[in-house]
């Protein structure tokens, strides 16, 4: 953790992200499936934004658009006032599936970004530091098929963090972790984010996770996703799960997601 932050000398601060009237739709067998409808979110540099919404509403789709992997049907995306047209390593994604490269060892998977950018030779220590961070230093030579689901997810996280992104895009990165590792990783994530100051977009299904981590929670409607609520979470870190203020917000959010009955 500390090692990684120190290893990265030219600390990149976060970038601002502007999502303006974004709409997107998929063609399925000739019929149009609207997925995002007029979504506008303005994210300050260094903000930690959690995105919550029903399954299948379009959260992953939004993240792909922000990453520059797909082109939106309408609307604009800007990173620090610059139009997002294609992927760039300043915006790194941790996908919902770890999608590690099975033919590369754990170390080589984490080194992927540095290698792709042609800086691996001088920056090998960053790979080691990132592996230390996720607690997998002893698995550096293992192949992905030898890892558990949670370990693979942690490798995917290390593979993103090693690139020192300005915007870190996380699609349920902790979803497959056991609750203990999950809590540890949440703390690590917050510490890392505070130290490095990158902007974070985190999709999660877990309202509590959103509230412990983010300083802003955005709740989406059912598909096509539109912004249903935009909630500030003004609480200092480290936050406590039992905090009555957070419990109150949590009840509010679950209500927005239509879960009052179960609460």
């Amino acid at each position: 953790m500390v090692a990684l932050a120190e290893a990265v000398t030219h600390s990149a601060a976060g970038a601002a992200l502007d999502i303006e009237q974004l709409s997107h739709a998929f063609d399925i067998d000739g019929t149009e499936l609207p997925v995002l409808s007029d979504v506008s979110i303005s994210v300050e540099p260094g903000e930690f934004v959690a995105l919550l919404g029903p399954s299948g509403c379009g959260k992953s789709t939004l993240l792909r658009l922000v990453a520059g992997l797909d082109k939106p049907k309408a609307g604009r995306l800007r990173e620090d006032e610059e139009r997002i047209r294609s992927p760039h390593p300043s915006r790194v994604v941790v996908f919902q599936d770890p999608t590690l490269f099975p033919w590369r060892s754990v170390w080589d998977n984490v080194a992927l970004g540095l290698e792709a950018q042609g800086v691996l030779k001088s920056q090998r220590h960053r790979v080691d530091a990132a592996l230390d961070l996720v607690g997998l230093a002893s698995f550096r030579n293992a192949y992905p098929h030898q890892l558990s689901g949670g370990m693979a997810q942690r490798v995917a996280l290390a593979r993103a963090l090693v690139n020192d992104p300005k915007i870190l895009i996380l699609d349920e990165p902790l979803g497959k972790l056991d609750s203990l590792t999950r809590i540890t990783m949440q703390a690590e994530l917050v510490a890392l984010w505070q130290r490095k100051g990158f902007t974070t977009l985190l999709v999660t299904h877990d309202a509590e996770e959103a509230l412990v981590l983010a300083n802003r929670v955005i709740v989406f409607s059912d598909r096509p996703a539109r912004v249903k609520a935009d909630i500030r979470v003004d609480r200092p870190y480290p936050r406590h799960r039992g905090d009555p203020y957070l419990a109150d917000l949590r009840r509010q959010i679950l209500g927005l997601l239509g879960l009052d009955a179960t609460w």
Partner: protein
Amino acid sequence: MSTYSLSDGLASGAPRLSRAPLLAGWIRESGVGVLASIAWIAFGLSCLWWQDVGDWSRTHSLGIAAFVIAAIALFGTVGADYLGSAGRALHKRAPWLLTLGAFLTLWEVATAKLAWLPLPFFPPPQAIIEVYTDDLPKLLDSVFASVKLQLGGYLIGATVGFLTGVSIGWSRAVGYWVHPVLRFIGPLPATAWLPIAFFTFPSSWSASTFLIALATGFPVTVLTWSGVASVSNAYYDVARTLGAKPSFLVLKVAIPAALPHVFVGLFMGLGSSFAVLVVAEMVGVKAGLGWYLQWAQGWAAYANMYAALIVMSLLCSGAITLLFAIRDRLLVWQKGTVKW
């Protein structure tokens, strides 16, 4: 292992076990090895006991060799515990050794001694040994010629096939032009080109190289192509968000991901190129094992044909083994791959 019951009994000083189960245990462990030794002694005796019905010069040496093998089998079995991994290897192969010894004995008796099988067509083992000792230079020349031709053609075919496959899988424009040609020409057996190739190419050697390359290239191309085409988009997405350029996507994502397919193509290409090699050597090239077979047939030298066939099968099997070794090296990351 073999001595468990034995050393158990000895270690305790006075053997508690009666002799009978001890003996039974020993027979169970070492019986096959001893039988294998007996089979080879039988083979040796079958060589030396009677007079040959024909005139072969290596009968005596073969018999001696059989006794040597019998001795090795016997000592290897009895002393298995002192021989470590060699002893274990012998123990594992003892059933095969037994079968082989019995088969050779039968073969020897049925051909050289009692002539149950018609003679020129079914030579005895010593006749084949004679080919290896007396016709060695010519056989080695043939092996060398075959290996050279096969290696050249295969490497050219595999390289061209691989590059073509990657280009079709990667570039739509290349696919547009190459795909129809591939569909039209690819399924044609390479040997169908033989008559044309032998008069259009400057030499029969270059013609054969071309044909072998063709036979190799088609499966390699198709499988490389399908391998590249089936690479999951998720891999490209990951690489692109990490800043990968197109060259990186081809070299570090598409090709490694397609490699298991490529090896399937390489194996198929190897098989079909062997067929082309033999036919080309029989028809056009005046060298190589295929030609040796043809030549031996012309002289009704059946022992030479069997000898050449054995060498040929060893070479083909060796080539496959080599390819498997390379694959296992490159694809260590795959779990559960087939062992050759």
